[in-house]
C-alpha cells in the first residue's frame, strides 16, 4: 500500500518538475517565473487545486512518442483570490516551449467548461511558442476548441489574459476574445506574425518588442489593457482587479466594507474646473476624489488617454467609471477613445457593474484621418453600448457636453438613470463662437462687433446646465464638492433597478 501512495507522490514530483531544472533556470534567467510559480503568486496560499496534472500528449510522429512530460505544457486548476473561486491555466514554457497540442488544448477546454458551469472567472497566463507543429491539424483543432469556449464564456464569466512571454500566431486569438489582456514589459509580446515573417514578406525590419511588446499594445494598438514591470506586479494587479468583479453574470459584483464616509465632501472640487474654459484639468482628480479611498483600477491607462476607464467603488459597491479627459486632446471623442470606452461599457453591462460617467466633451474629432478611419461606425459603438446598457447609469456633466457627444455620453436620452450637472456645465450643440458663426452667418462677415455680442448672448443663454435642467434632461444641478454624496445616494436608489431590452438573438453593434 505504502508503495502505491508513494508512486502518486513520485508522479506528482515528476509533473511539478515541468521541463526540468535546466529549463527552469533558463526561464528564471529571462526574468520570468515558471508556470507554477506564477500560480503561487496569483492565488491565495495553499488554495490551488491542480487538475489534469498527468495528461500527456498522444502524438507519435517525429519522435514525439519518446518525449512525454506529464501536464503537457500547461498547468490547469482552480483556487481562490481573497477567498473567491477562480479558474487558472498557466502555459509552461519549459515544456515543449508551452506549445499547444491536442491534449494541452483539451485541458484548457475542460477548465473553461467548468468555469462556465460554476460561474467563476478564468485567468489565462500566456508564455508559449504557438502550435505543436508535430501534431499538425490536431493542434489547430485544439485552438478552435478553445476559441469556441472563449466565445461561449464571453459575457458569462470574466475572462482575463496575462501575456508573460511569447504569444504568437494562433495563441493570440484566445486572449483577443477575453475581456482583458495585460502584459509584462520586456518579457511579454504578442503578434499574429513574428519579425522573421514580417521581414520575409514586407522587408520591414522590426524587433519582437517593436512589433508586439507591452508598450506597443498598451499605448499604440490598444490590444492590451495594461502593462506591468514584472510578473509579480502583473499578478498582484490581477488579484486587485478580481476583487471588483462578480464571478459571473449571475452574480452581483462583490461589495466590500468601505473605510471612506459616503457623505465625504471635497471642497477642492469646487475649483477643479478652471475659470478659463479652454484650460484643461485632470479628470482623474475628480475620479480619485469621488470613489472610495481613492482606489481606482484604471483600464487601458496608456491608450486613448482622452477617455478614462476603470473600476472604483462607491460606498463599497463596485462601479465602472468612464470619463472624458480634458488633459488629452481636450477630451474629444475619436476612434480610439470610442472603441476603448464602448468595450468597457459593454463589459460592465454584461457583469452587472453600474456605470458612473463624468462628461467634459467638446465633440467628435474632425478630420480626414478620423473619417477615413471610420469614425462614424467607431463612434457609434460607444453610443450603442451606452444605449443598450441596462445596469444603473449615473452621469455627471462637469463642463462641456457639446453636440452628438453629449447624447453619446450616457445622456438621459439613452436611458441614463440619474443625470447631474455641475453649475459649470455647458450643454449645447457646440461652443458659442461656432454656433453664432452659423446662426448669424451674414453678420459674421460684416460686423465682428455685433457677432461678439451675439456670442455673449448665446453663451449667456446656453453655456449653462439650466436649459437642459428645465427640460428634465438633467435631474439636478449639483455642487461639485457634494458629488460623492450625491452619486452614492443615486446609486442606492438604483439598487433594485430592473430594465430589460427586447428579446433578440443578439444585437448587431456596428463592429
Amino acid at each position: 500500500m505504502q508503495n502505491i501512495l508513494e508512486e502518486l507522490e513520485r508522479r506528482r514530483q515528476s509533473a511539478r518538475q515541468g521541463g526540468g531544472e535546466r529549463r527552469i533556470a533558463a526561464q528564471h534567467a529571462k526574468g520570468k517565473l515558471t508556470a507554477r510559480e506564477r500560480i503561487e503568486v496569483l492565488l491565495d496560499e495553499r488554495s490551488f487545486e491542480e487538475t489534469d496534472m498527468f495528461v500527456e500528449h498522444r502524438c507519435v510522429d517525429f519522435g514525439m512518442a519518446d518525449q512525454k512530460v506529464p501536464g503537457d505544457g500547461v498547468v490547469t486548476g482552480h483556487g481562490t483570490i481573497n477567498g473567491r473561486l477562480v479558474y487558472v491555466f498557466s502555459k509552461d514554457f519549459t515544456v515543449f516551449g508551452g506549445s499547444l497540442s491536442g491534449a494541452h488544448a483539451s485541458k484548457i477546454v475542460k477548465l473553461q467548461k467548468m468555469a462556465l458551469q460554476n460561474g467563476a472567472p478564468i485567468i489565462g497566463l500566456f508564455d508559449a511558442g504557438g502550435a505543436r507543429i508535430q501534431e499538425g491539424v490536431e493542434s489547430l483543432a485544439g485552438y478552435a476548441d478553445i476559441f469556441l469556449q472563449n466565445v461561449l464564456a464571453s459575457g458569462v464569466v470574466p475572462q482575463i489574459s496575462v501575456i508573460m512571454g511569447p504569444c504568437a500566431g494562433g495563441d493570440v486569438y484566445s486572449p483577443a476574445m477575453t475581456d482583458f489582456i495585460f502584459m509584462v514589459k520586456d518579457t511579454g509580446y504578442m503578434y499574429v506574425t513574428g519579425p522573421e515573417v514580417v521581414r520575409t514578406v514586407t522587408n520591414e525590419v522590426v524587433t519582437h518588442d517593436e512589433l508586439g511588446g507591452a508598450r506597443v499594445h498598451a499605448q499604440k494598438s490598444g490590444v492590451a489593457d495594461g502593462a506591468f514591470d514584472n510578473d509579480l506586479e502583473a499578478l498582484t494587479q490581477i488579484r486587485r482587479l478580481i476583487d471588483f468583479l462578480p464571478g459571473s453574470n449571475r452574480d452581483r459584483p462583490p461589495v466590500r466594507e468601505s473605510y471612506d464616509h459616503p457623505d465625504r465632501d471635497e471642497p477642492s472640487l469646487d475649483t477643479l474646473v478652471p475659470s478659463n474654459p479652454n484650460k484643461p484639468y485632470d479628470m482623474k482628480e475628480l475620479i480619485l476624489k469621488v470613489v472610495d479611498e481613492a482606489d481606482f483600477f484604471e483600464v487601458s491607462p496608456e491608450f486613448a488617454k482622452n477617455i478614462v476607464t476603470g473600476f472604483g467603488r462607491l460606498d463599497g459597491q463596485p462601479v465602472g467609471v468612464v470619463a472624458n479627459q480634458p488633459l488629452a486632446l481636450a477630451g474629444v471623442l475619436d476612434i480610439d477613445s470610442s472603441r476603448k470606452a464602448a468595450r468597457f461599457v459593454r463589459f460592465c453591462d454584461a457583469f452587472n457593474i453600474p456605470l458612473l460617467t463624468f462628461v467634459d466633451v467638446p465633440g467628435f474629432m474632425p478630420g480626414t484621418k478620423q473619417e477615413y478611419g471610420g469614425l462614424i461606425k467607431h463612434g457609434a459603438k460607444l453610443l450603442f453600448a451606452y444605449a443598450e446598457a441596462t445596469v444603473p447609469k449615473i452621469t455627471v456633466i462637469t463642463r462641456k457636453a457639446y453636440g452628438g457627444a453629449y447624447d453619446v455620453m450616457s445622456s438621459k436620452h439613452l436611458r441614463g438613470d440619474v443625470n447631474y450637472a455641475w453649475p459649470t456645465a455647458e450643454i449645447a450643440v457646440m461652443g458659442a463662437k461656432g454656433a453664432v458663426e452659423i446662426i448669424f452667418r451674414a453678420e459674421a462677415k460684416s460686423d465682428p462687433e455685433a457677432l461678439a455680442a451675439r456670442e455673449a448672448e448665446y453663451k449667456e443663454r446656453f453655456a449653462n446646465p439650466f436649459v437642459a435642467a428645465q427640460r428634465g434632461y438633467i435631474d439636478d444641478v449639483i455642487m461639485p464638492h457634494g458629488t460623492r454624496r450625491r452619486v452614492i445616494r443615486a446609486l442606492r436608489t438604483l439598487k433594485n433597478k430592473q430594465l430589460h431590452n427586447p428579446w433578440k438573438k443578439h444585437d448587431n453593434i456596428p463592429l
Partner: protein
Amino acid sequence: MFSKILIANRGEIAVRIIKTARRLGIKTVQVYSEADADSLAVEMADEKVFIGPPPAAQSYLLADKIVEAVRQTGAEAVHPGFGFLSENAGFAQRLADEKIVFIGPNPHAIEAMGDKITSKKFAAEAGVSTVPGYMGLIDDAEHAARIAGEIGYPVMIKASAGGGGKGIRVAWTDAEAREGFGAVKAEAKGAFGDDRIFIEKFITSPRHVEIQVLGDKHGNVVHLFERECSIQRRNQKVIEEAPSPLLDAKTREAMGAQAVALAKAVGYDSAGTVEFVAGQDKSFYFLEMNTRLQVEHPVTELITGLDLVEQMIRSAYGEKLAFEQKDLKIKGWAMEGRIYAEDPYRKFLPSIGRLVRYDPPKEGEHQAEFGDYVVRNDTGVREGDEISMFYDPMIAKLCTWGETREKAIDSMGRALEDFHIEGLGQNVPFLSAVMDQERFRSGKISTAYIAEEFPEGFHGLEPTPFQQDLMTAVAVCMQRTQVARARRAGGAGPIEREAWRVSIDRVQREVRVFVTEAGLDIELPEEGRSVRLESSQWRPGEAQFKGVLDGRVFTATVRAGHDGFVIRHRAAEAHVLVLTPKVAELYARLPEKVAADTSKMVISPMPGLVVSIDVTVGQEVKEGETVAVIEAMKMQNIIKAERDGVVKSVGPTAGDSVAADEVLVEFA
C-alpha cells in the same frame, strides 16, 4: 486706532496681516488681481477691490489703483506687506501726500536705505561696521597688493562693472593679489569695457545674520534680536531661524546696538531689518537695510512673543513703543522652512500647478517625546488652489518653536512629516533632509551650505535603521488591514500567517507579526529584536500614516504601488513589499528593472503642449541646440539637447500634449 486698513499685497502675507487686524478689531480691505479673485485672503477680508489682470505690473504694482481702492473704501491706512510697493519711497510719499497712512517707515528712511551707496554712507557714519575695502581706483598690481595687505587677506578683487561671476578673483597672498589684479582688469576690459577695479575683504564661509529693529514716530528704536538666514539656494532664503547659533551675547549686543544706531540715524519709525554678513569668527559687516516687514519675521515673533504687524500698525498710528530694550528677552528657539512649489528631485525646477491635496500640520501647541513645541503655518492657499506662475511660488512658511535649537529642529522635522501636499513638486522632503543633517544640527552653517552638502543635487536620503523599521511596520500594518478586508469581502477567514518577509527597495528581512491590543508587535528574528507599532488609526485611502513606533511619534506618507507600497518618511522614500516567504523568494529572482537609459533621449521636463519640434529624423544636433518648444502654463519652455547626436526618432508633433518624462526626441 485705525478702523479700516487696506492690504496692498496678496497670498500668505495678506492673510497674516488680516489675522492681526481682525484681532485688533480693524476692518480690512483686500485688493486683488484676476488670478486671486477666489483667494483665501480675499475670502477672509471684510471688503475686496479688484485692481487688474494677473501680472503684478498691471495690478499690485500700480500705486494709482491702490490709492483709488483706498478712496473707494474709506480705508485710513495701507499695509504694503513685502515685495510689490513695500520699499517704494515714491509710493509712501504719494500716500503721505494723499493723507493716507503708510504702515511702514517714512519715505525718507526708505529712500536713504534704498540706495546701496547712501545706505553704506549712513551706516559708516552711524558707526556700523562695513566690509573693509578700497573704493578708490587702483593704479597697478603693486598698488593692489599694498591695499590688499592693508585690508588683510583674503580679499576679493572685483571689477566695478562686474557681475555674474565674471571679473572677480579671490586672493590670499600678495602674489595672488598682483596676479588677480591683472586678470580681473583684462577680463573687465574685455567683458564690460570698463576696467575700473576695487578691492574688499573676502569673507570665507559667510553667514547671513540680520537684526530686526522696531521704531516709533517718537524717536524710540529697539532691536528684536537676530535671525540667521544662511540656508539659501541661489540667493533665495530657504530656512531661517532665531536666534542665530553663531552669536554669543556680546556679539548680539554689538550687532543690535549698531542696528539701532543706524535706524536712529535715518529716523526709522517702523519694523525693519538690518542685514549683516558674518564670518565664522563672529566678525560682521553691514550689507543693507530692508525697510519693510521681512518674510521670515515669524521666527522673531515666536521667540519674542510680539506681533510685528501689530507693532507696525501701532507705530503707524502714532503710538509709542510699549516697551524698552531692557524689557525684551529671547525665549526659546524658532525655525522657519519655506515650502516652495519646486521639485527638489529635478534640480529644484519650479513646479507650479494645482494643490490637489494640501493638508498642513495642525497649528498650535504639540507634545512629542522630545518635548513640547509650537507649530505655526503662514499660508495663503487652501486645497484646490493654484500656485500660479504670476507670483512667488511659495506655498507656505512653516515655523516651529521649541525650548532649544535642537528641539526647534526636531519640531520642524515632525511638522514637516505632517505636511501633506499633492499635485505639484514641493520641497518638503528636502527641508526634512536638512533637519536631519548632522552639520545643520551642529549649527556649522554658511550661505554655501546647500551647494556644499548637495553638490549633485537632492536625490533623497537612504532610510536609517529606524526608518527601515518604520517602513516595515507601516507596510505590514497597511497590508494586513487591506488583505483582512478583502478576505472578509470574499468570504475567506482571517489571516493566519505570522511569518512574512518585507522587502525595502529589494533588501529583504524576515518578520513575524503578532497582533496586540495596542497594535502590532513585529519580531525581526534575524536581528533578534522586535519593534512595536502603536496608536495607528490608519485606514485605506489615507495618504498619511500616523503612529508610534517604539515610543516615537511619526507620520509617513504612503501610496499604493503595483505590487506593494511607496512609503516616505522625511527625506527617505522606498518601495516596500510584504510577501510570504515563498513569494519573497520568487521576487528576489525577478530582475530589477533599471530605469531606461535616458541619456540618448530628450525628455519633456513637464506636462505641456508641444509648440514645435525643431529637429527631424536623421538631423545632426549639437549640444545646446533647441530640440523642441513646450508650452506649459502659458510659458514657452525651450528644450535643448544635452549632448551631440543624430536624431533617431521624434515622438510627438506640434500640437500634441505631452506628459512629464515623455520622450520628445531620441538620438541614435
